[in-house]
């Protein structure tokens, strides 16, 4: 697992760039990560990201789109607008969480 410099801080990531240590993330880093993938974060983005962080803290697993929609109350369509293309992966990346487990 590589360590990368993000904003002058060493951050542990996996081969794809997803953070591997929950505690290394803060909102400043989240904003930097968002910038890296071309996202400008609005209040609504932050509501989603805070939901994801809190949900992960409780069960150590990144919420799927379905879970973010049913439990967080964000419409899937809206998530596609906020995080275009691949919302589940982009949300996890910016929130500093593991890529959601695809499946098996």
């Amino acid at each position, binding site marked *: 697992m590589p*360590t*990368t*410099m993000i904003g002058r801080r060493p951050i542990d990531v996996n081969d*794809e760039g997803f953070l591997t240590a929950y505690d290394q993330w803060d909102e400043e880093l989240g904003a930097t990560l968002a910038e890296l*993938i071309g996202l400008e974060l609005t209040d609504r983005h932050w509501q989603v990201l805070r939901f994801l962080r809190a949900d992960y803290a409780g069960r150590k697993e990144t919420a799927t789109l379905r879970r973010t929609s049913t*439990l967080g109350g964000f419409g*899937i369509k809206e998530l596609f607008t906020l995080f275009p293309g*691949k919302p589940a*992966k982009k949300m996890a990346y910016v929130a500093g969480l593991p890529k959601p487990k695809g499946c098996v």
Partner: protein
Amino acid sequence: MKRLVILGGGTAGTMVANKLRAAYSQDELALTVVDLDDQHHYQPGYLFLPFGTYRAQQLVRSRHSFLPDGVDLVLCEIDRVDAPFKTVYLTDGRALSYDYLIIATGVQPRPEATTGGDGPEVGVSVHSFYTLEAAKELAEALRRFRGGKLVVHITDMPIKCPVAPLEFTFLAEEWLTKHGIREKTELTYVTPLDGAFTKPVASRELGTMLSEKGIHLETDFTIERIDNDAKEIVSYDDRRVPFDLLVTIPLNLGPDYIARSGLGDDLNLVPCDQQTMQALAHPDIFVLGDGGTLLTSKAGSVAHFAVDIFMENFPAHLAGAELTHGFDGHANCFIESGYGKGLLLGFNYDTQPYTGTFPAPLIGPLALLKESRLNHLAKLAFRWVYWNMLLRGRPLPFTNKMSLVGKRVEDAGSASAQPMPAKASAPAPLAASPKPAPVRKPAPARPSIGKPAAKPSPTPRPSAGPATPTPSGPLPPDPRKGVDSTTDPSPVLPGPIKPTF
């Protein structure tokens, strides 16, 4: 005497009932199995029904004929489980109290969970094959099909038997060819995943097979609705895939009683330990079969291996001791690829499916991730094994710990994969472990996961050499919690890794 109740008399429930009855006398352990009806379905057979390989009556037997004497079979719907009071309530008002509970009610397809999934085209141009009835209807629809747009679609993961949609696609391609309408048919495979399958090497091999057969692959498709009027499936990012015949795999959910009992997650799956299948919230509940949250395939082979691990742990649980045996997530899947051939996949939590051979006792090595006639025959032969050996709890010549013998392990850095030497793959003798602590994942010769060739990393791989110096001079103090940066051997990359989305 202790009372153990098994909810669900399917593959896992029947297997574990047989094994428990053989291991414990009725004086030691009273066993009750609860299910809705007395029909045990051979679910792997649904796949073949639309193509006429099997008839429906070959796939159904009575549940009670597979349960040994001394096991009560209760036929009723489950209302809810009161876990704190260790009682199962049935919809007819009966209450079954238990000391130990096994949840083996699996997952069921829920077409109505998708908008339009219960629309007027259902049974006309919208079909599925994940229940016996649906598979029979699809057989009729295929017989009436004269060409056009045939779309095979997965709603969301996880689904039981995750390779079945691919197998259906391969078998449909053969069926269309043999019926002379392949030229008139556009065949499309639509998946919410970013490739044909989840694991990189398998995704690459299976993706290649799709394109060689002229099957279009539509990835990252998160369905919003089935448009019954336009006969299109529509994604949340407004992609539309038109169909004349849609074969959709509906959302899979655990049964509603799980939700009513407050035992499940958002898919009504019961959160359970990855190694012991013990429910995280209730130590006297175990989840066997598809109904839990194991991060491996929802498949019969997993149910079989997990039941074995449960049986190894149950004496300790009865004695109030720690559980010392751990499941490694081992799954074996035969994949029908059409034209009388099949592939075999083997993987676990740590190891993705590789190419190579599987050293099956008695029938000799089976080709892994490669088409062969023997794999197809082994799959067909499995129906006999299922009815006559597996359900009855008779030992099968397969181990519940995955071995890397014969597998070509692909490393991210090496182009030429080598088969693992036999000695590196001997499974750890868990039973002999003197430590009382639960055994975590056995990880002999843990390989790194290979990357699909199509997705090169945008950043050079870190070398194994000394840390790459940063352009900005000495590192600032390491703020990471719990990490001693002076002993951290990983190289520090000067900039972030940007993922490819």
